């Protein structure tokens, strides 16, 4: 009797384990298939994760947003930050709010420290949820060299991100507007 109870609980635990892995897949697939596409400027470097292998760590060129008037943004609390497509085709961030925006693309993020800028406007520091671009263990260091090793100084790197209902998922890493895998293949002899 007791063992059947144990088995029943194990089945529940097993389903939760599957749901955590599967839920992340579904959430990401939905964002990738139906989300709106944005392009963010980045600065990559190349570290290793003990469990998940090599990746290109991504530092976003935009890492803070202004706080909307009257919004009570506090560190560690969830906030909503609108994402706006700029004239140059790259994304920028709107003013952070605490209520879910009724329309437009936005990211649901955890607020960092809130500091005033020179003009006294409140700014909130952000940690983007997509901070890593995982790559084949041979290619990740090459990608990093590709960004930093350009003849004319640094090449421009960016990521395309699909955003749906506050969830952002990285789609592709670009170097000089070329997807990273194609760029690495085309520039094989140069390196």
């Amino acid at each position, binding site marked *: 009797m007791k063992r059947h109870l144990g088995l029943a609980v194990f089945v529940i635990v097993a389903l939760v384990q599957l749901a955590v892995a599967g839920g992340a*897949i579904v959430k990401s697939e939905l964002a990738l298939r139906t989300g709106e596409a944005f392009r963010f400027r980045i600065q990559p470097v190349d570290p290793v994760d003990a469990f998940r292998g090599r990746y290109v760590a991504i530092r976003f060129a935009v890492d803070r947003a202004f706080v909307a008037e009257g919004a009570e943004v506090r560190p560690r609390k969830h906030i909503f930050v609108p994402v706006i497509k700029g004239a140059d085709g790259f994304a920028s961030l709107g003013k952070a709010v605490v209520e879910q925006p009724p329309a437009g693309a936005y990211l649901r993020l955890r607020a960092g420290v809130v500091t005033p800028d020179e003009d006294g406007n409140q700014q909130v520091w952000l940690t983007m949820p997509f901070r890593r671009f995982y790559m084949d263990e041979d290619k990740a260091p090459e990608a990093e060299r590709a960004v930093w090793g350009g003849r004319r100084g640094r090449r421009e790197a960016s990521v395309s991100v699909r955003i749906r209902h506050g969830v952002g998922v990285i789609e592709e890493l670009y170097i000089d507007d070329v997807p990273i895998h194609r760029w690495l293949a085309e520039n094989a002899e140069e390196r």
Partner: protein
Amino acid sequence: MVHTMGRLSVRWLLSELPKLETEGVVDAATAKRLRDHYGDQTSGSGRRLVVAIFAVFGGLLIGGGIILLLAHNWDAFGRGTRAAIALAPLAAAQLLVGWVLLTKWHSTAWREGSATLLALVVAASVALVDQTYHTGGDLESFLWRWCLLLAPLPWLLNSTAVGMLFLASLTWWAGAARVEGSQVLIMWPLAAAVVPHLVHLLRSDKRGLRAANLQWVVALFLCVAAGVGLDHRVPGLWMVIYVGLFALMITLGAAGRRDEDGLWRRPFEAVGVLGSIIVWLILSFEEVWSNVGWNHIRSSEAFQELVPWVDIVVAVVLPLGAIAAMAFLLDRRRHRLPFLWGLSVPVMAVVWPIAASADAVWPGVVAFNLLLFVVGLATLAEGVRRQNLAVVNLGMLVVALLVVVRFFDSEFGFIFKGVAFILVGIGFLAANVVLSRSLGTAGEEAE
């Protein structure tokens, strides 16, 4: 029967049998009956143990291999394939564990091996999903999700190996989270997930190897967690916490064991004694006692309101718990050593408030130098009284460490230090030679 007597005692008895037989103490039939009774059980349990250990290592290697293979990041596979690869091994490992639960529940090897495999495959699946979609954030966030998914398994699968894995990953998470400046207080309730399994083990097979292994990991976890898992906003409160923690470990360990248990089966005492020596030595330096107490509280926004209170509660509960455990659980005649080592708690209770309120350095320094000296000598004396060379050496080690630390600390010349070291060394050797001789003659007389 074998468990309560201990495998070592049985082995000793079996090795004595031929001699007893030739000397006519037991007849051949009795010897055979004894051999049949104990021989089968020990060899059988020994084999079972080896099989279980191999099963756990098998699970570890296969699971670890899967993680490494996935960490290569296979660009060639599409997203759909990778999602399938993430879920399939997880489902397979779960089915294996379910089958073991139904049909092989009583086999430690099957249970521990399959549970270990599942624990690692969970990590591999979560990792692969993270890789495929470039989500999941830092190592900290990965370890956190892994700990949550592991938490029910030690109890549910009665698996010590997963319990050890769980505590190890939880400690790793806490360390990583502290580096990031996050709050880690939540690790305490989560760590309590191993308690049901620990209780189950202590009830069913207290002297067994699994209980000993798990207690080692719990003891080491507590040492690290007391440092990482608390806020330490009141400077110097760590002294009170660690002194109380180690005294409590020694007391509980000593109360719960038999005299003949080997070192591996006394993890709480071993960690408590070693930790005490290290902490007392640190406390014998002047530097640690300056700027101690509530007058030097660091205030910054990063600290959260609740946390210092937890620190203070822990700093009160641990020493009181140690005193209570000494009062109720220990036997004054049998447990002289634990009482002796528990002296640090009342000493701390007197010295810390003085250091904090008067900003005085010297009471703490003097008290802990004296404590090391007195406890070292008294341990040595108790060892001589009990004719136990290991206890004698422990006492001498404490005194010697105190001498070494003080001489590096002080401004005596090299010649003086050198001579002092040589004298202490000679004292060590001489005491051991004399004692082992007297133990030898005592042994011969006893025969």
